[in-house]
């Protein structure tokens, strides 16, 4: 074993109480960092999951119709024009089949599916509900939003005049699988569909309003024969959604809304959560570093006689410095191992405290290897940095002083 390691390890073992104290300090610090990060990232993942559970990463549709003024602005004076925006009506994406092909070629896109989405009323007896008709190809749509796994009755299969509705709607209208339901469009077209499945997607609005029908039914009902109103896209990296959306707009001329744009508040919230978590971590690291440094300074003072002797024997200064840097690194590393265990234990404990009725944790904690490695590396580096001042103090010791007065 190299000299520096041997001396460092021996000194750590020798000053057992000090070493334990400093280890406990590092462990608590690392534990807090690990626990906090795991909790926050778990919370964020679950928030994003919940958001994206009812929402495509990117939704493409035709841009809104804008009026084109025929009057020139610089025309004869006295002519004023108030150009009214026309009410938007449901229109098909032009040449959507070719669009699908060209969108598919954009890198970063996992899946896409055309849908026809529009408002309608669901009538059952005297009850009348406003719903959102979503004409989809079930196989394709499942790859965008996994409704199939959220089915509570029946199945997510739609052919001909089948429909799949949300659990809230089913309850409100007293429907079960196999029942019939009349859908009417605002222009009095109507269609009768058979309920094939009931879903609970975890979002009240969707459970209350979504009615999945076949593409063809929706096209007929919403007077969009042969057309589709939107193309929904799933991307590989959810945080690249906005940049992909921008690119899709550039390529296709369609309006592309990414989930990031429609959930700006959520993203701002997540970002400020991250920032405050970083702030806390930075202060914890500073506290840990000060703790390590102060204990090592005391240890240098206590060991000054021995350091003086080592120097008198001709030990190069750099070796003395290294002894203390290694002590700092070892304390940081060992403390981080304890801290990771502590943080993981806290996370598991915390997750077990707050559970959903079905036993799944309400606060999912996200304890990743990357987090553990990051915490360990930070703690080790902190140990080394914190040891720098004590190490240089040791290096500056004059052997004559300590030998004379030792």
């Amino acid at each position: 074993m190299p000299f520096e390691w041997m001396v460092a390890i021996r000194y750590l073992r020798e000053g057992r109480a000090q070493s334990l104290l400093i280890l406990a300090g590092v462990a608590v610090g690392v534990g807090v960092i690990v626990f906090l990060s795991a909790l926050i990232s778990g919370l964020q993942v679950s928030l994003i999951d919940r958001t994206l559970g009812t929402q495509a990463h990117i939704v493409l549709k035709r841009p809104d119709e804008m009026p084109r003024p025929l009057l020139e602005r610089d025309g004869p004076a006295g002519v004023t024009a108030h150009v009214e925006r026309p009410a938007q009506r449901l229109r098909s994406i032009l040449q959507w089949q070719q669009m699908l092909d060209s969108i598919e070629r954009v890198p970063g896109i996992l899946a896409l599916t055309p849908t026809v989405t529009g408002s309608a009323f669901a009538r059952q007896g005297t009850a009348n509900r406003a719903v959102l008709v979503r004409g989809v190809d079930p196989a394709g749509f499942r790859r965008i939003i996994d409704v199939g796994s959220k089915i509570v009755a029946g199945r997510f299969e739609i052919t001909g005049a089948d429909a799949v509705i949300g659990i809230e709607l089913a309850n409100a209208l007293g429907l079960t699988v196999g029942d019939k339901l009349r859908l009417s469009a605002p222009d009095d077209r109507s269609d009768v569909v058979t309920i094939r499945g009931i879903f609970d997607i975890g979002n009240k609005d969707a459970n209350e309003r979504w009615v999945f029908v076949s593409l063809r039914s929706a096209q007929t009902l919403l007077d969009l024969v042969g057309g589709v109103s939107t193309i929904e896209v799933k991307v590989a990296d959810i945080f690249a959604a906005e940049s992909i959306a921008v690119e899709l707009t550039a390529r296709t001329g369609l309006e592309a809304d990414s989930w990031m744009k429609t959930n700006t508040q959520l993203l701002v919230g997540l970002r400020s959560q991250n920032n405050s978590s970083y702030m806390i971590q930075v202060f914890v690291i500073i506290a840990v570093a000060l703790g390590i440094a102060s204990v090592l300074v005391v240890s240098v003072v206590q060991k000054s006689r021995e350091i003086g002797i080592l120097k008198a024997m001709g030990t190069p200064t750099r070796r003395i410095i290294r002894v203390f840097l290694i002590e700092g690194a070892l304390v940081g590393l060992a403390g981080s191992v304890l801290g990771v265990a502590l943080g993981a234990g806290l996370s598991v404990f915390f997750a077990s405290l707050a559970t959903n009725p079905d036993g799944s944790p309400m606060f999912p904690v996200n304890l990743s290897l990357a987090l553990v490695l990051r915490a360990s590396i930070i703690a080790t580096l902190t140990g080394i940095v914190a040891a720098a001042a004590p190490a240089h103090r040791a290096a500056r010791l004059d052997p004559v002083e300590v030998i004379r007065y030792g």
Partner: protein
Amino acid sequence: MADCLLRLEDVTKDYGEHVVTRVLHGISFTLAPGEFTALIGPSGSGKSTLLHLLGLLDRPTGGRILLRGCDTGELGHRALGRFRGRTIGFVFQFHHLLPAFTSVENVMMPALADRGRADERMRRHAIGLLERVGMADRLHHRVTDLSGGQQQRVAVARALSMTPALVLADEPTGNLDTKSGDQVFALLRQFNREQGTAFLIVTHDHRLAARCDRVIELVDGRITSDRPGAAA
């Protein structure tokens, strides 16, 4: 000069920045290889200061110290440390062993600090030295578990572990009872005879000084006498 191990030329040492106190006044003498010398003098006469200068732990204010013909004033800090580690061994009044380590580890320490890594030869050499100082049965004891005499014997073994040309001893027996002191002194003498190591021993004990080859007496920072000892 072939027969000159250490040579001091008009060495002075001052302490203090505002009120300068001259501790050593123009010291000059030479030590030959294998010489066994006592340095005596009353407290405050500058013995320890002189010893630290000789041990290259401190630098003189004026004059030159030549060790093996090399002007030590011209060496940088690092080179001086290395040179010291390889040429000079120390035995201090308070053994100054490293309490966290065993006897063998303490004896290996100078070589370890120099080379950076322990090897088997180093270990065998250390064990051999400890056997010669009569500590064969205490090799793996923590030095804090040893008696004062035993500690000082380990310290002697450590001082000799780099096979130095010169060993400087500051009151090596000052803290020991007469019997242990005599044993340690005998060890020093034994290494001096067997290996030709030169020794310079600072002592208060005139009885010990008399058993050296040469006795240098220092009073108020000046050499007042330099004569052969009774043993010479």
